[in-house]
């Protein structure tokens, strides 16, 4: 059938790493289904496209848009709004779009602190920038003036900028889950299935990672927190019970407990479980509750084993957490 009679599909990346695109490619032959069933109208990673082409499209002319990446710049925001307008179904694709993900961790710092890290000669990580040049939003060159997008003081998941229909969690989402979602959409097109209620999380389970984890579990009491590189954990026993902070208990199932099965802790990329408001709060509360001490001093001591709670419990969800960003980030001039 002719290309333009097929439902239109788009995928765009905001503030993200591109891993989500790779995950889509990882669906192997499913890609062909996408091509077979959809007319891919906009996918900068995969094909050449211009924003103006999208602007030219009719509103809601795109059936499904996978938007991955969070909103860090005015460009991200513009495209999110644009694609929202042009799409029937907007899917927050992957952790960045759904809850901010690793880029969201930048919310611990103010714009200024970030720029110093990136550009400043002294506290910059790897930059050689003797003149301490900073990006300028507007630049007047002899050839004319250039604008680059504004860099916002905080990163936001897209649902704080536009209305989102579905969330597909994961960093990146497991290719199997993506395939399932693609199948679902195709079935819907064929009228063989109905869409789940708006706002629901698709391509993931209802419980948490422990549900899929094969390790044996017991009553938990923790006297000391250790890090996985510090010792050889028992391969069959729950990692948390061994004092390693594993985010499995608070992380939505769907990944098949890949990391714990591979002997690594769950770092929580699938985000909050159903109905949970703040991921970090859950994990923080759970872990501290099972500390095995009744003495304030000793508790302090034990907690030293968690040097970076914010990083540990909000690795993926800081931007979507109740506090959202650190004080310095919030109080940054916007």
């Amino acid at each position, binding site marked *: 059938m002719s290309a333009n009679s097929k439902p239109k599909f788009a995928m765009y990346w905001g503030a993200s790493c591109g891993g989500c695109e790779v995950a889509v490619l990882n669906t192997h032959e499913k890609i062909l289904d996408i091509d077979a069933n959809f007319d891919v109208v906009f996918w900068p990673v995969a094909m050449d496209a211009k924003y103006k082409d999208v602007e030219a499209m009719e509103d809601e002319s795109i059936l499904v848009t996978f938007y991955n990446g969070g909103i860090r710049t005015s460009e991200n925001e513009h495209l999110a709004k644009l694609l929202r307008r042009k799409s029937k179904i907007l899917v927050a694709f992957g952790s960045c779009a759904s809850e901010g993900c690793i880029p969201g961790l930048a919310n611990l710092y103010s714009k200024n602190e970030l720029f110093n890290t990136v550009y400043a000669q002294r506290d910059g990580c790897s930059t050689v920038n003797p003149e301490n040049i900073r990006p300028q939003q507007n630049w007047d060159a002899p050839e004319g003036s250039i604008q680059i997008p504004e860099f916002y003081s905080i990163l936001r998941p897209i649902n704080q900028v536009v209305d989102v229909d579905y969330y597909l969690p994961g960093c990146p989402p497991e290719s199997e889950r993506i395939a399932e979602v693609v199948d679902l959409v195709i079935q819907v097109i064929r009228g063989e299935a109905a869409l789940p209620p708006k706002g629901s999380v698709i391509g993931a389970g209802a419980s948490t990672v422990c549900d899929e984890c094969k390790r044996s579990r017991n009553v938990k009491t923790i006297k000391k927190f250790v890090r996985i590189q510090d010792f050889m954990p028992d391969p069959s026993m729950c990692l948390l019970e061994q004092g390693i902070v594993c985010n499995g208990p608070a992380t939505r199932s769907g990944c098949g407990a890949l990391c714990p099965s591979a002997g690594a802790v769950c770092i929580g990329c699938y985000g909050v479980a159903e109905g949970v408001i703040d991921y970090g*709060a859950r994990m923080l509360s759970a872990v*501290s509750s099972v500390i095995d001490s009744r003495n304030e001093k000793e508790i302090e001591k034990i907690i030293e084993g968690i040097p*970076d709670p*914010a990083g540990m419990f909000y690795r993926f969800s800081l931007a979507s957490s109740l506090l959202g960003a*650190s*004080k310095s980030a919030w*109080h940054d001039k916007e």
Partner: protein
Amino acid sequence: MEEQQQFEPKIIGFTCNWCSYRAADLAGISRTKYPPNVRLIRLMCSGRLDPTFVFKAFSSGADGVLISGCHPGDCHYVDQNYKTMRRFALMEKMLVQMGFEQGRIKLVWASAGEGLQFAEAVTGMVETVRKLGPLDWHIRGQSNGHLTKELLLKEDVV
């Protein structure tokens, strides 16, 4: 500076049903005075205190959060307030990381007989937070801001 003196902090206080809430009652019965900046929420036990509540309070405009329960060992539910003690320690550590000043969050043990001590703790905390100044999280916390500018203005009225 002028505003600093004007500033009336909003503090959300969590009390347990058995000790600290009754301490607050006792403070009332014995007409012990303390500043009106604290608004209390009753839980059955300080062990019910979910850190989510604390973050919610801050992101909703509280300048400080007071958590209170029975003295360690005197918990009406045997030993639940020890869990509170542990959660508080980790929570405080994380809040400091998020840029909170010491003193915006405070843990106070008060038995049902310690109305005076409770009032003193509240007074002390209000002073501390007053010195720290407004937190203003909710203004920026659009992420969950159910709040518009007009609301803010209205709020100053009340």
